[in-house]
């Protein structure tokens, strides 16, 4: 529960984006999560990405399930509509919302319990359908709100705070998303804003199902020795395949990379992703290669981060369904109702 109202005033010299909005216009309420929570860093990255992209805050719909991660949409984009729905069911709610109005930007925020356990099916099927969305899992490998139970993404052999060893195999949502046909798949770390912000920005600009798994240490229940989702563990085992920048319009976020290592990817909407390759052999357009790469590194205990796969020409659910360009929620009786003359004909066919 938020007891403290967030002050609205800010420094008059605060930088403004293309639309004249400052960072503050993308913020939400004060977080009620634990101080130092990885999720708050992700919130900050979402704010940053939306600011950089000069998105009108109210044109974003934030949808989440239940859990610590699912509370976070209240903490960013305060002028957007948010929907903290049902545990594990964010993907279906988001799918419906997207069908109703294809003109908004859909940001789905979920957690590892929400997406890998109770909502595993909905996660899978929303990805399969190619819903145009940015699906972020704030993955801490633990049930925080209910105080420290293992989640389905907890690695086998990792230890809980109480010293219990996890004997179940872990679900790697990135591997699954690749298999299910997500057209933008990335992994990052909440503590690595430089990598995360452009990834979120690129995912938002991507048309189709974008999935980002963000390892986000739970400082209360999963940041101890023996955990494989702690700050120390992730920093030590992080293996980034690339760093990227998103270039939209006239004002690129940053381009300070040596040209020889940069690969440009043009997305459907005209924005470009500048990929600075760390692993020279890595090809982000090869779904099969990405899956193999991921498995090989997982076997070595390495957490691969970066943009793992992107299909710049992806289609989305609306294209599959061939829906009209006008948002369905704006259509009225004059275009939706066939009228009485049609009904008379229909009646006549049933006699």
């Amino acid at each position, binding site marked *: *529960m*938020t007891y403290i109202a967030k002050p609205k005033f800010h420094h008059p010299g605060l930088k403004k984006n293309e639309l004249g909005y400052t960072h503050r216009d993308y913020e939400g309420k004060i977080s009620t999560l634990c101080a130092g929570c990885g999720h708050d860093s992700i919130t900050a990255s979402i704010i940053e990405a939306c600011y950089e992209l000069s998105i*009108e*805050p*109210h*044109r974003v*719909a934030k*949808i989440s399930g239940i859990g610590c991660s699912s509370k976070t*949409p209240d903490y960013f984009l305060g*002028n*957007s*509509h*948010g*929907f*903290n*729905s*049902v545990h594990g*069911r964010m*993907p*279906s*709610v988001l*799918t*419906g*919302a*997207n*069908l*109703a*109005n294809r*003109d*908004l930007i859909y940001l789905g925020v979920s957690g590892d319990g929400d997406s890998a356990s109770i909502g595993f*099916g*909905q996660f899978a*099927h929303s990805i399969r*359908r190619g819903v145009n969305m940015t699906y972020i899992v704030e993955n801490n490998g633990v049930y925080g709100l209910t105080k420290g139970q293992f989640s389905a993404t907890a690695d086998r052999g990792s230890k809980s705070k109480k010293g219990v060893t996890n004997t179940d195999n872990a679900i790697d949502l990135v591997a699954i998303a690749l298999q299910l046909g997500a057209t933008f798949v990335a992994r990052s770390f909440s503590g690595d804003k430089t990598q995360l912000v452009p990834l979120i920005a690129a995912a938002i600009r991507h048309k189709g199902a974008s999935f980002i798994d963000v390892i986000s240490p739970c400082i209360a229940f999963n940041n101890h020795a023996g955990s494989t989702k702690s700050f120390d563990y992730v920093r030590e085992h992080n293996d980034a395949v690339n760093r990227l920048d998103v270039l939209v319009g006239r004002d690129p976020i940053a381009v300070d990379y040596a040209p020889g290592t940069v690969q440009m990817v043009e997305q459907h909407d005209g924005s470009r992703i500048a990929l600075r390759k760390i692993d020279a052999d890595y090809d982000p357009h090869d779904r099969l290669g990405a899956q193999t790469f991921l498995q090989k590194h997982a076997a070595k205990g390495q957490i691969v981060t970066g943009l793992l796969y992107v299909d710049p020409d992806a289609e989305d*659910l*609306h294209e599959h*369904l*061939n*829906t*009209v*360009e006008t948002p*369905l*929620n*704006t*259509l*009225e*009786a004059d*275009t*939706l*109702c*066939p*009228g*009485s003359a*049609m*009904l*008379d004909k*229909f*009646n006549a066919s*049933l*006699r």
Partner: protein
Amino acid sequence: MSDKKPISSVNDFVVRFANVNGSGSASANEMFARAILRHGVPVSPRNIFPSNIQGLPTWYEVRVTEDGHLGARGGVDMMVAMNPQTWDKDVAGIEPGGYLFYDSTKPMPSTKFRDDITVIGVPLTAITNSTYTDPRQRQLFKNIIYLGALSALLDMDPKLIEQLIGEQYKGKEKLLSSNVHALHLGRDWALQNLKCPTGLRVKKSDKVGDRIFIEGNSAAALGAVYGGATVCAWYPITPSSSVAEAFTAHCKKYRHDPETGKAKYAIVQGEDELASIGIVIGASWNGARAFTATSGPGISLMTEFIGLSYFAEIPAVIMNIQRAGPSTGMPTRTQQCDIIACAYASHGDTKHVLLFPEDPAEAFEFAAAAFDLAERLQTTIFLMLDLDIGMNHRLCRPLKWDDAKQYDRGKVMTSEMLEEGRDFGRYLDVDGDGIPYRTYPGTHPTKGSYFTRGTSRDRYARYSEEGSVYADNMQRLMRKFETAQDLVPRPLQANAERPTKYGVIYFGSTTPAMDEAIGLLEARGHQLDRLRIRAFPFHSSVASFLAEHDFVYVVEQNRDSQLRQLIVNENGIDPVRLVPIVHYDGSPITARFIAKAIGDHQDHLKVTPLRKAVS
């Protein structure tokens, strides 16, 4: 051979076809029913089918009823016994004096027949095999051949059947002529070899009028098209799947942009019922009219979302085509058994609006109205159909639509209203009717956004665990439910000719059987006032009706008398005065059943008190 006089009846009898599922008999049987309609004689057909695709027994029953009694009658006057598996039971089910029509190609021992019925053997297999060589053709045309034989036995006009075949195979000349040929093969054989007609005859009449012949599921789906539904999410489940399938077909016909060919609708087959209702809730939250169709097990799965719809106040339309429960129950049998499950669906204190259409015409009207109600009341509206209405062709009045009608999109605060400085509190009761304003996502850059949640919050949608704030909201939701009373379809009352202390309440698919039962009861001297309930919450006239009568029968198709429970619970009345009349074996309720149950109770009530008798 009959020692009982054969039944003799014109335009009033029941023919039942016993077939094997998957044998292609359905279309021939349906053509039989339609052909009788073309004689101007009402029919009421019913499919009795197993949860199976091929091989298990299936029946198709046609009640021919000049008087227009569209409920199931019970009993069989002519059995068309085409399934050896069910022979014994089928033969046993024929009314004394009735008729047995069978394939006499192979001789049957006389023990397989009855003495009190007329046995009519037609060598269908022999006729078929001497004409056709292809096995599939043999199977399909055998059905048309028995249709032809029946047309002679029942004195039907073959031209009317030919006309139907012509309509069905329009543009497919080869199929058309071969079907007509098969029809006459059967008809001619019967005319040459049998005494035609039998005591059962179809005579041309004019009792059909402008009525149409349609399945409730198709009508409800068309209601959704007319009512402006743009998003449909569903998961296959009998007996509701044909709602989504019909919606798809109707949309293909009526909802594509003529210029671009693009769809003004989106249909998603969800991975389960949870996803289906989730998609509906998401779409409705975002301002589209959305619905799902399901049956009992699907309702069970959807209940968490239904609670969210109630508490977070998000419109939703759920069409529940009820089947016999609990659990998987009898998936292909009819019941009205989800009344309580839907009225109070989900944990915590909830109440939901239910609509009870009596037939396809009302299913169309109520389906369209459900979207107005859902957006006006910002909550879930259940359209309570059942298998009997949903999956059977029913004769009903033509569907009607008023072109002047605009959709009631409910209380939606627009960008302009926000600009004017209107106070927006998502859960603020500004009009005293319990209904707050909502905004669609993306409405205004700085005003009108809010955070939707299933947790408790204040009038301005701010999270709160304050007891008083929570209670204030719960009371407003009650107020909203009271508002619903006057928005939903009202009960229809019909009084007996003479004043009476007795009344009967009924709803939905029980209606035609009830209407017929009233006649039977009157013939026994029982006068009853009738109230057909069409929606929950109950209108105040339900309470008045209860107050005006000493005893009220509540007729319904479930074991626990669920509507009665709901009436008792919501009106706080003495349950003794509400007499349950329940029918729940999965078959549709009949007038005979109702008349007997109520009649027996009435007779019992009228027994002279002992003290009076001995004094």
